[in-house]
């Protein structure tokens, strides 16, 4: 019953996006188990069979995909599973297929520069520097943070509660602050 409702909600959302929000393109078979928020005017592209859900036992957190500028883009591949993921893009965030994200935030900007005026946006931030690329079949655990300029390789896994400040090679498990390799995956 829950699955049918989620599928219905997803289909409704996709249809409404096609009518009113042209910057959002969602593939087939979206399932909406909890509410989500898509904010901003930048292009958001989401592949087929996306599943949007919340964390069990936590009623307040939900999935947010926000774009801070019209040029900012979010690109998510097929079979994505987003459990209360928070994504803010000022430049570009790209994810592969089969990503699995839980209750963690992925932000590719610092929002303000570090000088006294706190100008926003920071003139030193550019698309090439701040781009976040996440590979196929990446798992990101709960309460972890992915900062700007990070590339996470295929099959990598981020342990819960870790802060990923540097790029992660493919196929390993990272954790901690800053995230270090806990065990290279076989």
């Amino acid at each position, binding site marked *: 019953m829950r699955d049918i409702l989620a599928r219905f909600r997803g289909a409704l959302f996709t249809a409404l996006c096609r009518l009113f929000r042209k910057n959002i393109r969602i593939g087939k078979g979206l399932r909406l188990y909890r509410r989500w928020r898509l904010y901003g005017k930048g292009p958001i592209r989401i592949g087929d069979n996306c*599943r949007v*859900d919340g*964390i*069990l*036992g*936590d009623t307040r957190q939900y999935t947010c995909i926000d774009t801070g500028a019209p040029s900012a883009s979010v690109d998510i591949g097929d*079979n994505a*599973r987003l*459990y209360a993921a928070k994504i803010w893009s000022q430049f570009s965030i790209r994810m592969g297929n*089969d990503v*699995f994200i*839980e*209750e963690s935030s992925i932000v590719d900007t610092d929002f303000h520069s570090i000088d006294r005026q706190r100008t926003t946006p920071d003139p030193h931030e550019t698309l090439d520097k701040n781009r976040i690329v996440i590979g196929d*079949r990446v*798992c990101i*655990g*709960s*309460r972890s943070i992915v900062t700007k300029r990070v590339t996470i390789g295929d*099959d990598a*896994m981020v*342990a*819960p*509660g*870790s802060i990923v400040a540097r790029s992660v090679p493919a196929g390993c*498990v990272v*954790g*901690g*602050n800053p995230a*270090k390799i*806990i065990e290279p*995956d076989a």
Partner: protein
Amino acid sequence: MRFLRRTGSLVGKAYRDPKTAFRVGKALLRGAWYIARYSLFSRRIKISFPFKAYARVTLKGPGTISIGKGCSVYWNVFDGLTVVTLADDARVSIGERCGLGGLTIRCSTSVTLGDNCLAANSLVQDGFMVNQNQAGYGDRIPAPQPIVLGNNVWLCGQSGVVRGSRIGDDCVLSRGSMTFGSEIGKFQLVMGSPSGVTMPIERLLALKGIL
């Protein structure tokens, strides 16, 4: 009345500080309401009396949960206590006289907390991912492993215990530290994320007069 002012009994304490007494009474009543509610609607959840609930308690899932005598749930940054069991054979057991505030437990095998534990806004999770079975990756995500915390453990704010960690008696997990499947002895201060450094608290206490 003078007699009441002097005595150290509960009645005397309540007479001297009626505000706190009212708060404690309210928490006890709320705890009793939680006990009644969970014992009526789910047989697998057992909470012993007295249970002081100053904040919201959320217990969910198909597994068994048992909370010992005299526990209290305080208000912290997030809500009060949240315990989520993700499998039928999951077991969460919390010892006696624990002070729990903002603690989140997500369990799919077993999580054991000893007596007299103190917990702030922290996370105890026995698998890498919460919805691991829905990922469809098979064995690629490491399987969850049980977590054991000893007696009198203090979990500071934003600390975390993840997958297969065993922590001895009287340990202190400092603020923001995360442990990933490590074994820690008795009476240690755990620091860092991922926590590699532990320091015996006896040595720290010996340094207390000098520093």
